[in-house]
């Protein structure tokens, strides 16, 4: 299910442009969307999910024009959506909440719905807590309920906005793996500012900045943007001022800084192989 976006613009009254003439093609499979806070990722996701109307431009998903009511409805029938600011009803249990969403998604057969809810509670490891009110759930548990509701109707298009926020490392890895497994014949659009989530799951990605597309390519392409730009510097003095410090670890003789910079940030700086995060920072520096 391809997503074709052309000239997509969204402006909010008094806030200026959130998306500025965006052109993007998202193929079937897993696709990452990176960008700083305020880059326009969530606005794009909300337009794709049919929650927001664009100011200008076109969006076609699987051939359906989402600017029309019929197009939006056709997309919503095959859509699983996990919003960034996910909420749940505190007065319902996880099982009841999923049953409610299942009904709204058109899973009318009671037995089918109950089976599907049970399967997904198992997938997100909430079976033991399924009949407890959501009021008592932790943030991570609520996030897992959100993941389960997104998968309820076996969606062909999955839009997930910051899905691993609030999850512990084990849950994060489990969910990333689940997304990769689901991606086969589906389109999974993963928006995040956690670069590692994309590095571990996506082959292709796009980077947004100030509502514009600043990169579209493979993870390797973006990683290569930092070739010969990643350095290791050990110093007991102040942190290097040239470039962007990625990390600082204790080492013999002071701290070992990992720095992304166009040239060596110190005379004794040693080159390092780049990661996707380095590539993302190099892109931001060039930007």
């Amino acid at each position: 299910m391809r997503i074709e976006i052309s000239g997509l613009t969204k402006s909010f009254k008094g806030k200026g442009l959130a998306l500025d003439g965006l052109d993007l093609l998202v193929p079937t499979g897993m696709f990452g969307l990176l960008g700083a806070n305020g880059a326009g990722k969530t606005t794009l996701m909300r337009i794709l999910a049919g929650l927001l109307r664009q100011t200008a431009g076109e969006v076609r998903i699987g051939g359906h024009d989402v600017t029309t009511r019929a197009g939006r409805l056709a997309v919503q029938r095959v859509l699983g959506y996990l919003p960034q600011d996910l909420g749940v009803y505190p007065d319902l249990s996880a099982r009841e909440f999923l049953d409610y969403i299942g009904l709204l998604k058109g899973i009318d057969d009671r037995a089918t719905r109950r089976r599907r809810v049970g399967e997904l509670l198992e997938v997100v490891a909430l079976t033991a807590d399924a009949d407890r009110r959501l009021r008592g759930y932790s943030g991570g548990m609520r996030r897992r309920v959100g993941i389960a509701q997104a998968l309820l109707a076996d969606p062909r298009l999955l839009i997930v906005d910051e899905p691993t926020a609030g999850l512990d490392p084990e849950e994060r890895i489990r969910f990333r793996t689940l997304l990769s497994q689901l991606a086969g014949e589906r389109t999974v659009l993963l928006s995040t500012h956690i670069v590692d989530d994309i590095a571990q799951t996506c082959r292709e990605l796009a980077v947004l900045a100030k509502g514009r597309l600043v990169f579209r390519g493979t993870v390797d392409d973006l990683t290569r943007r930092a070739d010969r730009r990643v350095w290791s510097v050990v110093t007991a003095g102040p942190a290097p001022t040239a470039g962007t410090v990625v990390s600082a670890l204790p080492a013999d003789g002071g701290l070992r800084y990992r720095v992304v910079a166009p040239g060596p940030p110190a005379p004794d700086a040693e080159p390092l192989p780049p990661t996707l995060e380095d590539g993302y920072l190099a892109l931001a520096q060039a930007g």
Partner: protein
Amino acid sequence: MTAAFRYEFLMQVRKRSMWIANGVVVLLLGLLSARGREVGDLLHDPDAKATVTSVAVAINLILPVVYGCFLADRLVRDDKLGVAAILDVTPSSGAGRLAGKYLGACAAAAVPLAIVYFGFVALYAATSGRPVAFAWAAAVFAVVIAPAVLFVGAFALVVPLLIPAPLFRVLFVGYWFWGNAITPDAMPTLASSLVTPVGSYPLQELFGYRGPAGDTELAGPAPGAVFNFLRPEATPATAWLSVGVLLALAILVLSAAPALRARTTR
């Protein structure tokens, strides 16, 4: 619509605070009535219709204040809780969900009211040996109490899309007593009119209720009063018209909800 009805009903009826608030109000009403020996008198009143109608008037004048306040967050809370985005991307009809939410929340709000009302009716029927009271009570509930619940429910769901829910609650309590309990000759009011939610017209014309002493004109033009254009001659036809106007206003207010929501979400 049935899904929204079912779960909205479930969530509202599980609200412990709703039961506590209703319980406190009913207890106060009971204590006040007991002091005036009204309960004992009522239980032995030979006129079943007059008895169940007068109890309905007392309940319908006070308990809507409670459920009006409790329903005030039902629509805005979907956005506040962050659930709206999940609901809005489902292929379900927005109008159907709104109708289900409205009817489910109203039905849940009517449960404590029905328990109190039919609980009293059962006690009366058993004490006085007049089971016909159930039939009259059902009729009063359908024609007077249910339209009031639906009318109040529509405003309670929709107005907080325009103003904060706490402010709505304050204004609503003021409106309720101003628009229902004050006589038109005392000050300009919507009481005793077609749009009086306690049901002045149907109470008087369909159930013969004319106040506690039986000598008060509840409906119809009040000499010299403001808003008399909303007070046609009281007849059975205008009584049904009043029920229809209340329900039509509820539908009209509800139909504005999608546009009001879109104003804040898009």
